[in-house]
């Protein structure tokens, strides 16, 4: 990064033809002149984030410098490189707040400091956004060609060999419809057949890690925090196996589990059972965190909101309920479908929820405001839904897997892609960081190519698909250290950064009780004692009345004034806008 300090080099000696080369001692001199407050050595960032006033001065100086050049040449790129506005917007954290009044110096200073750091963080992040080089693409058909008619084979032929190898079928017709799960890095695939077949595969190298048959019916499989362990919901209990297929735990507390979700940052395994119990298991300590009876019957529809770790459950009465381990009852209950809910999924940013129901509808909700956005009618009805990192929606209708683009922004009439698998689709999941959609169906497993599905830029410290064993170990330790406690799961994650008002008031009340008076209360007005009979009871009351509710009065006065003004302006605007005259206007002058 070019240090901005260099840009405004002050050069008292000006060459005739060429701009003199910027010398670092010039900069030093200038810094001395400015009496820089920055004491530590890193001047690159420091100079940039010096208070605004000095920046302004520097800008002026540069301008003056530019004018000074006799040759007429000037620095074509003065100052630090500009950052595009939209990119800045992308990293914006908060709006600026109003500055407090002049008197409170320390407060002003602290607020200014925080504002400054925030601004700096934003700018830096926007600058370094440049370092995310990968870009996502999309499938584009020729003229009059629907992208959904392009077959997987064609795509696999067209792309490079490594990508083409990502389209494959596993024919596993023996052990019935398969559920699947990719791990967080997207390297490993876990398959669970209904009739007891469990297999872990490093799917990119097609290397089988383990394969067992649990000799029981399996309803769901899920990776835990790493590819070392996975959970299998079997006929009766919940089992945990390691990557070699060795049974590690049989958790009897979790019975009749139908669906599971793993919350990676909380190390929580959430399970939904046929006895309508929602249970949370802390995987890091092996403790049951919470168990709630939802009282809504069989729970076979479940997903998590990756943004706030809230669990969404779909029910047979058309409602979707939101759960956190901290509350016995549902946080939110939404009526989404007239029939039962068949599948729910939430996008990565926690903005949209897509549901499908028995009424064969596909609905898109804004889950922050709980408002419906779009509603589609799928003639076949979608049994499974999955959203990719970049917002592609896959829906399984019978044996056809459809992929949609931008279901929430613009109304969709056609799928982006469609593919027929060999049996009824049973499980769907987009592979993280890959343009791949895994489909588990009655006849095995299909890995489908879906261009533009995966997030191209991965966070190497969070989920690195190419991590080594050592890095994995490191990551595991760090992740455990940074584990988020289950108490912090809330509907609005930013709530943690807010002042707890209720306890604040409660505390205040306690304090008042202890002190015997309200320290924050306004002083009561006591009229001055006047002599010569002017302090009679009536007079005192009168004087009290004069100041009673003064602040309130001010507020009221202000509001009334505002209203009047608004009315006037509104009238004027209306009259000037309409330009129409009533019949009686002719009598007006």
């Amino acid at each position: 990064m070019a240090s901005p300090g260099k840009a405004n080099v002050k050069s008292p000696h000006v060459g005739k033809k060429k701009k003199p080369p910027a010398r670092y001692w010039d900069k030093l001199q200038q810094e001395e002149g400015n009496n820089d407050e920055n004491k530590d050595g890193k001047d690159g960032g420091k100079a940039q984030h010096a208070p605004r006033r000095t920046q302004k001065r520097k800008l002026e100086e540069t301008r003056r410098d530019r004018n000074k050049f006799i040759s007429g040449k000037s620095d074509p790129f003065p100052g630090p490189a500009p950052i595009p506005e939209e990119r800045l917007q992308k990293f914006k954290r908060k709006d600026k707040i109003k500055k407090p009044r002049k008197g409170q110096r320390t407060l002003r200073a602290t607020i200014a400091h925080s504002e400054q750091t925030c601004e700096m963080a934003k700018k830096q992040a926007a600058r370094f956004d440049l370092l995310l080089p990968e870009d996502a693409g999309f499938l584009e058909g020729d003229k009059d060609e629907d992208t959904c008619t392009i077959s997987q084979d064609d795509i696999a032929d067209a792309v490079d060999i490594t990508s083409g190898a990502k389209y494959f079928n596993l024919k596993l017709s023996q052990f019935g419809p398969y559920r699947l799960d990719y791990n967080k890095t997207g390297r490993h695939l876990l398959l669970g057949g209904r009739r007891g077949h469990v297999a872990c595969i490093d799917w990119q190298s097609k290397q089988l890690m383990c394969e067992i048959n649990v000799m029981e019916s399996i309803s769901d499989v899920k990776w835990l925090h790493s590819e070392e362990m996975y959970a299998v919901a079997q006929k009766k209990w919940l089992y945990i196996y390691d990557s070699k297929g060795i049974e590690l735990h049989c958790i009897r507390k979790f019975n009749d589990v139908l669906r599971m979700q793993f919350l990676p940052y909380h190390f929580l395994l959430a399970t939904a059972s046929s006895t309508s119990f929602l249970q949370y298991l802390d995987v890091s300590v092996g403790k049951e965190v919470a168990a709630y009876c939802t009282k809504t019957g069989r729970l076979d529809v479940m997903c998590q909101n990756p943004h706030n770790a809230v669990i969404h459950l779909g029910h047979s009465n058309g409602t979707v309920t939101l759960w956190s381990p901290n509350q016995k009852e549902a946080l939110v209950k939404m009526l989404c479908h007239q029939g039962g809910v068949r599948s729910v999924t939430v996008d990565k940013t926690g903005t949209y929820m897509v549901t499908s129901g028995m009424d064969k509808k596909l609905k898109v909700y804004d889950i922050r405001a709980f408002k419906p956005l779009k509603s589609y009618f799928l003639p076949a009805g979608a049994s499974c839904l999955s959203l990719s990192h970049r917002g592609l929606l896959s829906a399984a209708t019978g044996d056809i897997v459809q992929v949609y683009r931008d279901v929430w922004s613009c109304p969709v009439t056609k799928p982006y892609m469609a593919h027929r698998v060999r049996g009824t689709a049973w499980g769907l999941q987009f592979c993280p960081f890959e343009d791949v959609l895994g489909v588990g169906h009655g006849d095995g497993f299909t890995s489908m190519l879906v261009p533009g599905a995966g997030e191209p830029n991965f966070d190497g410290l969070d989920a690195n698909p190419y991590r080594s064993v050592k890095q994995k170990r490191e990551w595991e330790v760090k992740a455990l250290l940074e584990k988020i406690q289950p108490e912090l799961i809330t509907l609005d994650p930013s709530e943690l950064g807010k002042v707890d008002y209720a306890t604040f008031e409660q505390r205040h009340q306690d304090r008042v009780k202890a002190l015997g008076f309200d320290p924050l209360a306004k002083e009561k007005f006591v009229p001055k004692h006047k002599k010569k009979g002017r302090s009679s009871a009536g007079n005192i009351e009168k004087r009290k009345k004069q100041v009673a509710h003064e602040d309130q009065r001010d507020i009221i006065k202000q509001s009334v004034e505002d209203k009047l003004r608004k009315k006037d302006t509104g009238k004027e605007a209306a009259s000037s806008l309409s330009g129409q005259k009533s019949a009686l206007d002719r009598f007006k002058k």
Partner: protein
Amino acid sequence: MIDMAKVSKKNMKKETIVKKSRGMTESSAATEPRVVYDDGDDEEEHLNEENLSSEEEQEGEDGASDERKRQKLLEAISALGGKRKNKLGERSEAAVHMSEFTVNADGGGDKVDLSDLIGNIDKTQAVPNKTKNQLKTLQQNEKTIETPLSKQESERIQRNVAFHKVATEVTQWKGIIQQNQKAEQLIFPLNQEPSGPRAMETVVTCWKAQTPLEQEIFSLLSANKQPIHNPILTPVEEATLKAMSFEEAKVRRAELQKARALQSYYEAKSRRERKIKSKKYHKVLNKAKRKDFLKQFETMVKTDPAAALEELNKMELARMKERMSLKHQNSGKWAKSKAIMAKYDEGARKAMQQQLEVNKDLTQKLVTSLNNDQEEEEEEEGGNPEVIPEFVNDAEQGVDSSNPWMRGKLFESPTEREVSDTVDFTEEGPGIMVNTAEEEEDDDEEGTEEERLLREFDHRRRLRQAEEADIVAVITVEHEEENKAAGACVSVLEEEEEENKAAAACVSVLEEDEEENKAAAACVSVLEEEEEEEEELSKFKSVFQGIANTHLDAEVEKAEETADTNHVDTHLEEGLMRIRTLEDVALLSQMESVADQTPVQPLTSPTTENMLSTTKMVGKNSKRKRGIELKQVLTKESKVIQVPLALTVEDKEDSDEMLDQRGLIKEAFAGDNVISDFLKDKRKQEDVGKPKVVDLTLPGWGEWGGMGHKPSRNKRRKFRIRTVPRPPRKDQHLPSVIISEKRNSSISLHQVNSLPSPFVNHTQFESTIRSPIGRMWNTEQTVNKITNPKVVTQMGAIIEPMAKEELMKNKKQVSTGNSSGVEPIKTKPMKHTKKK
């Protein structure tokens, strides 16, 4: 018992007090007698001595030597006690026997004067003159020396002075302390020499010639004016550079001077011109200007149509500006003076009236295509546009600003207006021109030419319409072509007209027309002057066609509304058209072209508009309902998606799952009462949250009770305890959502529940902690910057308190830094002056 105890206690106290007093007295007694004793002792001694002396006197009467001896002895004895001397001085009783050793004030005058003592000094030669003079001044000086301050006061002053001294000393540190407090990071020990290799430049600049050889070299360098620190340019070079810049400055200055002079000349000229009172002069001038402008404009139209359009836009803008300014509200200086005159002067009144009309005209909204929408809205409101009486529309048109009552007619056929309007664009009335010119010279001097021209046009149009009643056209020509042009729209309108004829209106219009015709026959006046103007303005026509078009469009639309008035014309199959001069006839062709363009737009039939309005209404209703109706939300129409591939396998529900029969049935028929169930659930939740009213009235308490007696309303009101209503539920406006109102207590443990010190309200605090500081969300640099420790100490280094030298150093640095920063700016002009 208690009393007793108290009493005893009191007694005890008394005793102790008594004891104390006794003790006091005893002690005093012990001291007093001693004092007395001492005195007595002294006196006794004294007496003894006196006795002794008297005895000695008696013994040694014989010789003077004895006398002297005795004196000596006395002196010796008196010298033994120190106090005695004082005693002697204090003796003040009148004594006949005067001692020669003491001076008694009783003897001579009251005070001893200085002159008494030194009175004869003048005469004595031994005293030097200097002392004499000093004594003299001392004598003249009558000031008495002030009494010295008391000890407390002097101490207080000293303390004060000392405090101030220390305070100033301490406040010197204030700046540094504040700076350190504000500093983002402090590294102790302060002012440490940075370890590691230093920058080459600092070494070079700090280096000083020490050895004789070095000194010699440096002296050589400086003698030859070679650069020592800045090895890029020699001072000579720099000087030449500066000289060049000076030359440039000179040139620039000259340029500036010239420009300023020119400007001043121009200003003077314009001022002179403005002061010329001759109206004729101004008229001629304006005319010339206008002609110039026209010429320019025409050429521009030919050469650069885009620029011409821009000019037109400018004109529009100028009109807008004029509109915005409140110039014509008869509130200016000129208007006030006219108002005074108006009582007596017809002309002034007229001028004012004109001004007002200009104002009205300007404030009138231009009829543009925007009006379409408004009309639609109107129709929406009114429901049936045909029912509205015609005069409402007529008033709305309001193109003629002057009072219709005054004019003596209510209606004006729209075609007529159309014609008059179009004529206005092409015609000019020179007589009016004179009228308008007067005012304009008053107030529009600063206005642009275009603005002025435009306003003139507007004036003329207004005036024409106002005076229509008096000066009426010469010839009425049935103009078929014009009618044809309008025919398109008229034919559309005819259908509607037939539906609702308002006979009365028709009659009135007919009558009106007749009147006008009569008037037309009466007067014939052709003004020759007009001709020139007309010719001139015919050039404008092409330019204004655009504007005219829009006007015409709007008017035709209005014609739709006032269909009844049109009715007459259409039945007659002819358009009324008045043409005043022969020139106008010539101009007709122009108008046709204008009229030809019109009928395209106004064809938006009212039926379609009605359709639009109805759809809009429906839309509004649905919007209103949306928030409430749950069913509508759920049954909201959804888009059907076609899938290219057909289904082959039927989607099987997991039938082999262990599901009891009831559950299956329930699942199958779940959709039937899903909504009602949900609503019930929601209502229940709401009810739980609602605060309950507690009634504490006791029947029969304080009044009659019994069967059929109810406690009075007043009482019930008094004893009903109402809890404060809860804040509105979060799902208040979401019909299909139930949001739990329970407080999440688990998170409150981790939340901040009291505002930290400097913050006043919680938004401030929240905003400061909102942005994350972790590595997960920030770049490395940012994290390092944000999480910098406030204080860094070096292991093993001794942190000494700040020395005073550092303070001085700091000050010096600041001063030198400032000076160095300012220097280059300061020195330059100095050199310039030298050169001059």
